[in-house]
C-alpha cells in the first residue's frame, strides 16, 4: 500500500470517527506498524497546517482528532449556530427518536442503530433539555444511559409516552425487531 493510499484511509477514519483515535487503532485497521502510522499521521497534520486547510488534525497524547481550522471560526460559527438554534437537524431527530423508543439507552446502542458517531447530537439534545442522563448501565465501562425528559413531552405536546396511539402501535411492531 503506497503512502497516498495510507493517507487517504487515515483521513477517512478520522472523519468518520469524529472523536480522538489512537495511532494503534488505525494501525490495526491497516495492518501496519503503529510507528509507521504515527509518522503518516504527523505528516498529514503538518501538511494541513502548513497549507492552512479547513480541516486540521489535533494531536493529544497518542490520539488524533480532526477539527476545523480555528482561523475560520467566525465563518463557521454563525452558520452552525443559526442551524442549531432552529429546528432539530435530521441527525438530532434520529437520535431523539431512538432515545424516545429505546430508553434508557446507551450511546453505543444509538450509534450502532444509526451507524454514525452520535456524541455531538446527544450533547445537542441534552443542551435542549430533551434528553438527560439516567444513571449508568451495569456493564463493563459503566456506560451512561439516556432517557427523554418532561420537556420532551411538553414540546411534543403529549401528556405521557403512553398517550400516543401511534407510538404504541409502532413500539409493538418494532420492539422485537430491535431486540
Amino acid at each position, binding site marked *: 500500500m503506497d503512502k497516498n493510499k495510507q493517507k487517504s484511509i487515515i483521513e477517512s477514519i478520522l*472523519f*468518520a470517527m469524529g472523536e480522538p483515535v489512537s495511532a494503534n487503532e488505525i494501525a490495526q485497521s491497516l495492518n501496519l506498524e503503529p510507528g509507521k502510522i504515527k509518522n503518516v499521521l504527523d505528516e498529514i497534520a503538518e501538511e494541513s497546517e502548513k497549507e492552512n486547510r479547513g480541516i486540521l488534525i489535533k494531536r493529544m497524547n497518542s490520539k488524533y482528532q480532526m477539527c476545523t481550522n480555528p482561523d475560520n471560526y467566525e465563518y463557521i460559527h454563525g452558520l452552525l449556530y443559526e442551524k442549531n438554534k432552529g429546528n432539530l437537524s435530521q441527525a438530532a431527530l434520529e437520535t*431523539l427518536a431512538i432515545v424516545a423508543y429505546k430508553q434508557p439507552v446507551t450511546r453505543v446502542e444509538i450509534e450502532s*442503530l444509526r451507524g454514525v458517531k452520535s456524541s455531538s447530537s446527544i450533547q445537542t439534545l441534552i443542551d*435542549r433539555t430533551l434528553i438527560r442522563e439516567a444513571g449508568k448501565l451495569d456493564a463493563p465501562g459503566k456506560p451512561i444511559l439516556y432517557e427523554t425528559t418532561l420537556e420532551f413531552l411538553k414540546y*411534543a405536546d403529549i401528556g405521557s409516552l403512553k398517550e400516543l396511539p401511534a407510538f404504541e402501535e409502532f413500539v409493538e411492531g*418494532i420492539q422485537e425487531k*430491535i431486540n
Partner: protein
Amino acid sequence: MNYEVELEEFQGPFDLLLHLVNKHEIDIFDIPISSITRQYLEYLDRIKQKDLELTSEFILVASKLIEIKSKMLLPVEEDQNGDEIDPREELAQRLYEYKIFKEISSFMKSKEEVYLRTCFKDPEYVEIKQEIETEIDLDELLKALRNVLATADLLKEDDFKVHKIQKETVRIEDKVIEIQRVLEMRNEVLFQELFEGCKSATIVITTFLALLQLIKNNIISYKQHKNFENIIISRCEG
C-alpha cells in the same frame, strides 16, 4: 425438463414469464404461446405443491395466457388499417417494458454498493447559550425512527404488510366437488362458464386452483377446437 428455479425468487408473473423467455432465448414479440403457457402453469402448480401463497397476479396472467392461446387458434383479426392483430402483442409490450425496468434496477443495484460504503458525519456540537423551546413534530420523529430502522435493515418489507385476515368463503376442495358435479351433469363445460357468478377475486382464484388440481390428477382435461375461442373442459375418459 428440469425446473431447478425456486418459485419464491420471482417478483411477479412478469418476472416468471421473462425467466421462461430468457431461458429459451425467445424473442419477447414472438413467444410460442402454448409451450410457454404450459411451462407457466407447471410453475404455478409447483407453487401450489409447496404450499406457497399464490398471489392473484400470477393467476391473472395465467388466464391471460390461456385467453391468448385460444385467440391464436382463431382466424387472424385485422385492425381498422387492415393490419393483422397479434393477440400476443399487448402482453409482449408489457413484458418488454418490464424488462427495461428490470435492467434499470440492476443499474440501481450497482450504485448501491458505493452508497452503502460511504460514511457521513453528524453536525458538530455548538453550545447554544439561550434557552430554546423546541417544537417537536411527532410525525417527523416517527419518520426519523422509521428511517433509522429501515436503514439498519431491521425493517423488512414483509413485516409491514398489513395482513388482512379474510374469512375463506370458498375452499378449493369444495370447488373441486362443484366442478365434478357440473361435469357429471354435462359432458363438457366452457372454461369461462366455470367462472360465471364468481363474486370475488378469491373465488376466481379458488376456482382456478381447483381446475389445476383436477387437471393434474387426470380427472378432467381441457382442449380447444380449432375454430372455437373457448377452452372446453371435460372429464377424462375411463
